[in-house]
């Protein structure tokens, strides 16, 4: 009786699971089918999934109109380099947060005092820039103004306790990207920099707009909080006694990090990297706003095939399939690692 009830429950849960899975997969299925139809068939409602003639014409048109390989190369470079850079920054950060936690803030100043200091520094910069007509032509004045804003903010972050630091990192992901668009656009755009020509250094030479390095830097910074949080969770699972034993045996900090900690956390590091790869591969907002041609990734490539007028669903679907296929293949072969990464710490 109990077994029959159990089997019935498993059957119901399986049906529900498959139904939800199919519903979630349906848009991708629709896109894949539309990619192989003519434009007029792609628009026909209700859709005939099996009876309409199949064609590869859309893929040929997309290939002819766009340099697909260039977009793939750009995307791959941005993904690989930003993941490597984020890893290099996140491992030491997560190590320090996990194994040398700070219980209380080390600064005696209150939150209000810090806010007043930072607002005061920003206000002073604003006044100097306003008086100078929003241009700074002296290196020392420009560098001084930059430090006036950066140093208090750095000290504030430096003196937080571990939970406060983690919360601050997470808070950087809370603002909608559109909220930061104009400042970041101006920083990327050489002519928008108020610190453009400092006499010794002309920052206009370092134009980040539509550059691979600009996108690598931005993607690194965007994903760094998630990177650090995930690695922090993995590192917390490793008993600190193992690291202490390594130290007792005379291991240097370098050896402790690379010969003891990282091999033990390798599954976590791999799943974190995979998640970062998927997030960066699919990123569209910043790519559409900050790239044009030289550094344009696959999300930009897809947007070339959308139009308010005319029939474009089949070509847009073909472009989408070409853009997502590489990441789907990577995701398929690494799904076990991904699931482990996403559910880590959920059940102990």
């Amino acid at each position, binding site marked *: 009786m109990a077994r029959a009830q159990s089997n019935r429950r498993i059957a119901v849960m399986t049906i529900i699971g498959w139904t939800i899975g199919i519903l979630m997969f349906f848009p991708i299925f629709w896109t894949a089918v539309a990619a192989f139809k003519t434009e*007029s068939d792609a628009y026909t409602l209700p859709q005939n999934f099996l009876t309409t003639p199949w064609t590869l014409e859309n893929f040929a048109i997309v290939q002819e109109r766009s340099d697909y390989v260039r977009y793939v190369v750009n995307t791959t470079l941005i993904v690989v380099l930003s993941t490597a850079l984020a890893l290099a920054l996140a491992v030491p950060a997560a190590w320090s947060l996990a194994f040398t936690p700070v219980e209380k803030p080390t600064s005696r100043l209150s939150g209000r005092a810090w806010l007043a200091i930072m607002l005061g520094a920003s206000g002073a910069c604003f006044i100097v820039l306003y008086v100078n007509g929003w241009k700074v032509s002296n290196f020392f004045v420009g560098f001084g103004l930059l430090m006036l804003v950066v140093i208090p903010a750095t000290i504030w972050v430096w003196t937080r306790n571990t939970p406060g630091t983690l919360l601050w990192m997470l808070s950087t992901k809370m603002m909608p990207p559109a909220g930061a668009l104009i400042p970041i656009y101006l920083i990327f*755009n050489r002519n*928008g920099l108020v610190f453009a020509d400092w006499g010794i250094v002309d920052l206009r030479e370092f134009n980040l*707009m*539509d550059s691979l390095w600009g996108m690598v830097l931005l993607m690194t910074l965007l994903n760094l909080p998630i990177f650090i949080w995930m690695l922090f969770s993995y590192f917390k699972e490793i008993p600190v006694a193992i690291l202490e034993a390594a130290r007792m045996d005379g291991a240097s900090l370098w050896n402790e990090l690379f010969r003891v900690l990282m091999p033990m956390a390798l599954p976590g590091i791999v799943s974190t990297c995979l998640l970062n790869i998927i997030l960066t591969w699919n990123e569209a907002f910043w790519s559409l*706003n900050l790239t*044009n041609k030289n550094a344009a990734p696959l999300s930009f490539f897809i947007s*070339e095939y959308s*139009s308010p007028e*005319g029939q474009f669903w089949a070509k847009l679907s073909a472009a989408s399939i070409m853009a997502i296929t590489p990441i789907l293949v990577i995701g398929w072969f690494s799904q076990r690692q991904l699931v482990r990464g996403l559910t880590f710490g959920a059940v102990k």
Partner: protein
Amino acid sequence: MKLAPLFLGAFAAMLASSVYAETTLTIATVNNGDMIRMQKLTDDFTASNPDIKLDWVTLEENDLRQKVTKDISTKGGQYDVLTIGMYETPIWGAKGWLVELTGLDDPADILPAVSGGLSANGKLYAAPFYGESSFVMYRKDLMAKAGLEMPDAPTWDFILDAAKKMTDRPNGVNGICLRGKAGWGENMAFIGSMANSFGARWFDENWKPQFDTAEWKDTLTTYLSIMKDAGPEGASGNGFSENLALFQSGKCGMWADATAAGSFVIDPKASQVAEHVGFTLAPDKGLGKRANWLWAWALAIPAGSQKVDAAQKFISWATSKHYADLVASKEGWANVPPGTRTSLYNNPEYLKVPFAKMTLESMNAADPTKPTVQPVPYTGVQFVAIPEFQGIGTKVGELFSAALAGQMSADDALAQAQQYTTDVMTKAGYIK
């Protein structure tokens, strides 16, 4: 001494490279069929201008508008040639963001309505690449079945009556398909043009919004009523593409939309009703204005470009009569960018294209400098050429789309539109 020939060779190479120094033009453009076709035909331009290389940035219309606006307003200088519309050109031209165009191929040949919409302070700031108006596409077979004959210049009364008579919902036929999707370039392009023909206007001479007038109420209630009686289901989500699909699959008796749709609906490969399609002017109410809009995609040079001469050369080529001949020779007259030059419509070969005559008549029926029955302080037929209009048009479009979806009444939509527009115009300083 032995190095002398080497230095001489290097010097000669430097001279040669400076003589043939390549100028790369970055061209931002929309991804419609005409623009894509131009990209394929640029060998003709580069053959006669080997020192100019063309780099294309092709984007969806709204993405392009955002990118180009950010670039030009911050003097970014990322692009040397921009594809912009009739809405932006007079605003940006007046602000000094665009370079005045000179040296175009026979500028007097450009349709007056189009050149008027692309000018500011009497100077032409963008060269039209293709222009469009709107007209009514209809099914001749369904019209005959309803016992009606479409006039060359129909009235709204006739269109409303025909739409009801052509509706055959059991067989999936809707009498009329109109835009319902929210957006200043979507439903408001149609409703704004319709309002002009009903005697309504966006603002009076003192920039006071006019949604509280009887003309606007008449416009909106007529639109909602006909869409309820003879429109397709879920019309509040339908834009150009959705209505095109409905018309091509035989589900619309009439469709009032862009003249650019003409080539799509008579294409037998894509349209199941290609052989039954007729074209006629947008309707009027006898007040002197028809419900048709006027739009042009045009090429302009941002003031931040360092390559103005090369950009002028390219724009002159792309908008020339020679380019029209080139397209005709390669892809046929039906694919020549329409609606820009008078000479095209004097060409007997082009006039054989079924929608050519009606496109010209529709474009001539729209005057962006005098778009409404009563006087207005703005230019633009289906839009108002002020920076605030994008936000206002989108918000009003959302309200009217919500009314079409049955989420609010026409009166509520108009009252909220009046309130919102008044607030924006007051904050912007138009209303003292």
